[in-house]
Structures are given as structure tokens and as C-alpha cells.
């Protein structure tokens, strides 16, 4: 029997679905609340599970626990390297570019004044994104030089992570983006995420509406290649329909999928747990 540790800090609907599916498939399940554990790293870790599924909502908790388990020969999905890259928009963009995957035009700068110069090159309207962060938090449209300067200035009063100015062209797209799920190099399903009223961001965490999206050849190809670019074994790939075709703007390593299950009817927890069992037997 395969033993699986699910590492979490909060139980979202996704974790409940995964727990139920693991039990249905006869997996020996250990639930690990990241908030209630400690590691004495002077000693070697013993009695590791066959495999771990990393589901922490906190990026910093996630990468540190994953690194630690891997250091003691544990197998964690997704890996430390994948989590590190996916959790950082700059690292993700570079990985995608290196693998020839289309991305929006992007610049990074490290001060307000150089951000203004970068904006001259990328042009308006653009978007300012924190390199680390999710659910559309603190993503700001940069529509003109005057308002952009005010937004850039406001970031100087925040944590230093927000002084990394990741600036991306605002892609002309329909009022939606696409989230696809890739498991073990296979395209599983996809949804459109429509932006809610009074917001241009499509995150379903912000009220975006989900609808099924048929997987055409272009979407399947770009999704699978984006997962490969970050060595992602279970990832969500976010892309936009630009005038020149699909462009990828994010790859999610602890993908939320409850809306995908709801609107596509695909049993995603089953796909994930089945893969983890196969992975142990490899």
C-alpha cells in the first residue's frame, strides 16, 4: 500500500477532495498540518512516507518544508525546484522563455526610476505585479506615466519584495483567461475564467466566473510545454488569448481546482491521487 503525506496549512475544498479520493483509492494517508510540526534538523528524518503532496497555501512554508524533506531523500510533488520557480513570476517567465513558450513582453527593474524607464520601453497600458504573490493581490494597472509614478511610489513604503518591479504589457484579450491542468505531462482539462464586474483580473478567488474550455491543439501543446519548462508534475497553467495566439503568464504549483471540477465534471482528485501512486511505483 502506498503511503502518502499531504502537507497543508489550511484545508480548502481541494484538500478535502484529495483526502476523500486518497481514502477511496486505499492509500495510507497521513495529514500533516504545517503549522503543528517542527523538525529537529540535527537529526536525520526517519519513517518518511513513500511520497508527499505539497499543498501549503503559504509559499514560504511550502518551499522550506519541501526542501527539507527532499534533503532527507523524501519525494515531494511538486519538487522544491518547481515550487521555487512557479512561486516567483520572474523565474517562471525566464523558464518559459528559455523553452520557447510565448509570454507577454516583460521587464524587471529594481528601483522606481528604472521602472519608469522600463515602462517607456514596454509602453502603456502595462501591469505591475509582485514577483511573489497570488490571487491577484497588489497587481496594478499602469495606464499612464502620471498614475504609474504614484503606484510605483506607493510600493516604496511596502516590504522590500515589492521593490522588485515586474512590469508586463497589458495583453489585449477577451474578458477572460484560460486555466488548464497538466498532470504527469498530460493535459487534463481547462476552464475559461471570466473577469467579474468592476475588475479586470480574472482570478476566481476574486469572483471570476468559470466556464468549461475545450482543449484545442494549441492549448494542449502550450500547457504541456509550460509544465515541462518548470518540471511541474501537477500544475495549473494560466494563459491569455492574445492577437498573436496564446501567451502564458503563470504556472501554479499548488493549483486550486474546485471550479475546474465543478464546471468540467472531470475527477481531478482521482487524476492526482492515481498519478501519485504511479509515481511511487516508478
Amino acid at each position, binding site marked *: 500500500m502506498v503511503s502518502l503525506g499531504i502537507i497543508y496549512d489550511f484545508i480548502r475544498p481541494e484538500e*478535502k477532495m484529495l483526502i476523500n479520493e486518497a481514502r477511496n483509492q486505499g492509500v495510507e494517508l497521513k*495529514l500533516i498540518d504545517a503549522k503543528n510540526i517542527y*523538525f529537529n534538523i540535527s537529526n536525520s528524518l526517519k519513517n518518511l512516507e513513500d511520497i508527499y503532496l505539497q499543498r501549503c497555501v503559504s509559499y514560504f512554508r511550502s518551499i522550506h518544508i519541501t526542501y527539507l524533506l527532499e534533503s532527507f531523500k523524501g519525494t515531494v510533488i511538486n519538487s522544491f525546484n518547481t515550487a521555487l520557480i512557479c512561486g516567483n513570476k520572474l523565474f517562471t517567465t525566464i523558464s518559459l522563455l528559455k523553452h520557447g513558450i510565448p509570454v507577454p513582453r516583460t521587464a524587471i527593474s529594481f528601483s522606481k526610476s528604472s521602472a519608469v524607464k522600463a515602462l517607456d520601453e514596454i509602453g502603456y497600458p502595462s501591469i505591475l505585479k509582485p514577483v*511573489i504573490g497570488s490571487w491577484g493581490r497588489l497587481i496594478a494597472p499602469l495606464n499612464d506615466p502620471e498614475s504609474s509614478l504614484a503606484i510605483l511610489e506607493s510600493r516604496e513604503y511596502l516590504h522590500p519584495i515589492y521593490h522588485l518591479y515586474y512590469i508586463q504589457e497589458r495583453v489585449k484579450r477577451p474578458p477572460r483567461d484560460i486555466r488548464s491542468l497538466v498532470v504527469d505531462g498530460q493535459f487534463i482539462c481547462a476552464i475559461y475564467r471570466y473577469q467579474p464586474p468592476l475588475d479586470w483580473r480574472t482570478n476566481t478567488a476574486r469572483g471570476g466566473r468559470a466556464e468549461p474550455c475545450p482543449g484545442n491543439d494549441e492549448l494542449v501543446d502550450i500547457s504541456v510545454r509550460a509544465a515541462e519548462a518548470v518540471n511541474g508534475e501537477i500544475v495549473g497553467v494560466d494563459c491569455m488569448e492574445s492577437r498573436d495566439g496564446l501567451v502564458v503568464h503563470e504556472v501554479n*504549483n499548488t493549483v486550486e481546482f474546485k471550479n475546474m471540477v465543478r464546471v468540467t465534471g472531470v475527477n481531478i482528485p482521482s487524476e492526482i491521487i492515481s498519478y501519485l501512486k504511479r509515481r511511487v511505483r516508478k
Partner: protein
Amino acid sequence: MQVEDSLSFQPIMFKRLFSKQIRGDVVKALCPQCEGEINIPEDAVVGEIVTCPDCGSPYEIESVGSEVVIKPAEVEGEDWGE
């Protein structure tokens, strides 16, 4: 990997505030903010977030079993996401 036994005093404090109430088969907890009734799912899991239907305050389930204990949920962190 070791599980920490000694939790902070806060959950114990909330244990008194949040004794479960059973009405039929439904387990409920009282919200300390507004005294609204929070439904605890039948298949509740430690770490699950429940929300007061009256005031919207989020709580995390601290333990399940003979008594359900909940505590105020952590505020969304800058590094939270997927």
C-alpha cells in the same frame, strides 16, 4: 517529523468559548464576535476554514472529535496563493 504537543494558550481559551452545540445532527459553534451560529461540516478536518454566516469572521478548526474547537483564522499572508 514530530508533531508539536504544546500549542499556545489561545486555543484553550477558545475551547471554553467554542463548545459545540448539537441540534439534531448539526454541529454548531458560537462566533465570539457576534454570537452567530457557525455550522461545522459533518466531515470537518483540522485546518479547515469555517465562516460565521452572520458577521463573516473566518475561523480555523483546531480539533475535531468529542469536542470541536475553532480559533480565529490566520490573516491572509503576502505569500498566500496557489
